[in-house]
């Protein structure tokens, strides 16, 4: 675009150049406000968490004790819960999301494909609290009765499997929280995967078909290599969502402090701990420990999301 913007042509109304400067300044200030907001979040969380970091030092990251009565706080439990649920949900959602995206782009008749894609995208917008209620009232009781109980009855609790799948069969545990997270990030990831696959030029695809490739071979040998970096971006984006998701997890994870002992054990995540305790925290150290947790979550998600965006930016999605 020509850079003639600040030069006021002759005969322009008075105040013309001033208006231009004011408007341009307002726009730039608004853009800068976004940077300030992000910086503000990280600085305020760091300052708020500082008393807890000072008091507990590096032990804040490694200790599993979280006790508001004795004022001893360690974040290892919520950190483990956050990472385990996020990775587990990704493990479940990734193959499904890929399958949905491939199905929509390659196999489904165009007319139906468009409608399913829109439906999937709309579902990505449903508030997390709705998923949480479904998890608490439908998924958890079903899971307790039809998965946890049979396993508890038939698997020897002393074996490795028994230890991995032990726990009170009430349905509120790390695994069901991961299931809910998987259902929540699935439509979102499927939608971005679909956009990503649509960026593959049709000529490339048609050339492969012209050589006699089956659809499976086209996807494996042409489409996926073409968008590989972007695919990592989508995975990271899903991971970022799962790490920070709050309400649905708070409903269904069981909200137990400390390090989870098995997949079917109640636990907590950083976000669920903050959501549950922050408004009721009475001591300054409790509040500070929760904000320190928030700071850790911010650092983790920021790194993951920034990486995701970098990869997706290159893929132009």
């Amino acid at each position, binding site marked *: *675009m020509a850079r003639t913007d600040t030069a006021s042509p002759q*005969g*322009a109304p008075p105040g013309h*150049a001033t*208006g*231009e400067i004011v*408007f*341009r300044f307002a*726009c730039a200030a*608004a*853009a*800068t*406000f*976004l940077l300030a*907001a*992000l910086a*503000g*979040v990280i600085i305020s*969380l760091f300052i708020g968490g500082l008393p807890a970091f000072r008091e507990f030092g590096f032990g804040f990251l490694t200790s599993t004790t979280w006790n508001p009565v004795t004022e001893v706080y360690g974040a290892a439990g919520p950190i483990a819960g956050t990472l385990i649920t996020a990775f587990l949900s990704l493990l479940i959602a990734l193959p*499904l999301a*890929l*399958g*949905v995206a491939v*199905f929509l782009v390659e*196999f489904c008749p165009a007319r139906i494909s468009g409608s*399913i894609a*829109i439906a*999937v995208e*709309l579902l990505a*917008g*449903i*508030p*997390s*609290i*709705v998923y*949480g*209620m*479904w998890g*608490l009232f*439908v998924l958890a009781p079903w899971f307790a009765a039809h998965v946890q109980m049979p396993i508890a009855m038939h698997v020897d609790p002393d074996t490795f499997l028994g230890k991995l799948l032990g726990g009170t069969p009430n349905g509120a545990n790390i695994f069901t929280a991961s299931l809910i997270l998987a*259902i929540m990030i*699935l439509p979102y990831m*499927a939608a971005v995967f679909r956009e990503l696959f649509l960026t593959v030029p049709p000529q490339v695809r048609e050339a492969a078909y012209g050589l006699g490739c*089956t659809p*499976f*071979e086209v996807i494996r040998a042409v489409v996926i290599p073409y968008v590989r970096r972007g695919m990592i971006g989508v995975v990271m984006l899903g991971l970022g969502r799962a790490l*920070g998701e709050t*309400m649905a997890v708070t409903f269904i994870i069981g909200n137990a402090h400390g390090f989870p002992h098995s997949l079917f054990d109640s636990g907590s995540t950083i976000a669920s701990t*903050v959501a549950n305790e*922050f*408004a009721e925290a009475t001591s300054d150290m409790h509040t500070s420990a929760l*904000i320190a947790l*928030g700071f850790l*979550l*911010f650092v983790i*998600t920021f790194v993951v*999301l*920034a990486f995701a*965006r*970098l990869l997706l930016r290159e893929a132009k999605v």
Partner: protein
Amino acid sequence: MMTRAARRRAQNGIFVVLCGIATVIALSALVMILWTLLSKGLGGVDTMIFTRDQPAPGSPGGLRNAIVGSLIMCSIGMAIALVIGILAGTWLAEYGAGTKYGQVVRFLNDVLISAPSILIGLFVYEMLVAPFHGFSGYAGGVALAFLATPIVVRTTEDILSLQPGALREAGMALGASRAFVIRKIIWKAARTGLLTAGLLGFARISGETAPLLFTSLGSQFYNADPSQPMASLPTTIFQFALSAYDDWQRLAWVGALLIAVAVLFINIVGRVLARETHRK
């Protein structure tokens, strides 16, 4: 012994079936959730929901205070988000498009879109609630503004970038300043798109719960004064769903249905408008 062609055909067949199964699993999980929402919520929708405030357990009541609180806080949030978001989006599309700084802002805005909302709640608590010793509807509205703004920015930038350069050139050829061209020509041509930007931002914040838990806190009384703690639909649902009372849980389902329907409706309207803009 299979021939090579037969093996490839079989391999492909299995792949197609697996992709189909994935789609069926995904869609059925989502249909199940919507079905639960409808079957548990629809029966409870009556006029009392909109005319009565939240009840004590065991007595009849509605969600008026929560609905009004949500509307007020979302309005505050959207008012802030629209002003900042449209200006920032305009800067990205019109002034900062090719600059390094523009790239940085766009990148961080994309990161902000997916940032955990509960952290925005903590931030606003530190900024507005702790220093003034009070939870308030204003704090809740500001938290929502931080969540809606990045979406408005992104959509605004996309929409403005779609406007033909000839529009800008024509305006400037007549001697209008760049700011004048943007405000009177580009914004006007893109007004449906800007409306879409607002709707998408609104859809995002109307169901947000986590950032409101410790900014507006919630309130069991009807309250239209944002300087006081304020109820909202999502926080009321949270409280009622986790309560031990059947009638509170029923109200929670009604509330969840209301929010889900509202979010879906706003998203669909936004989408239809966006498609019309693209067609032009």
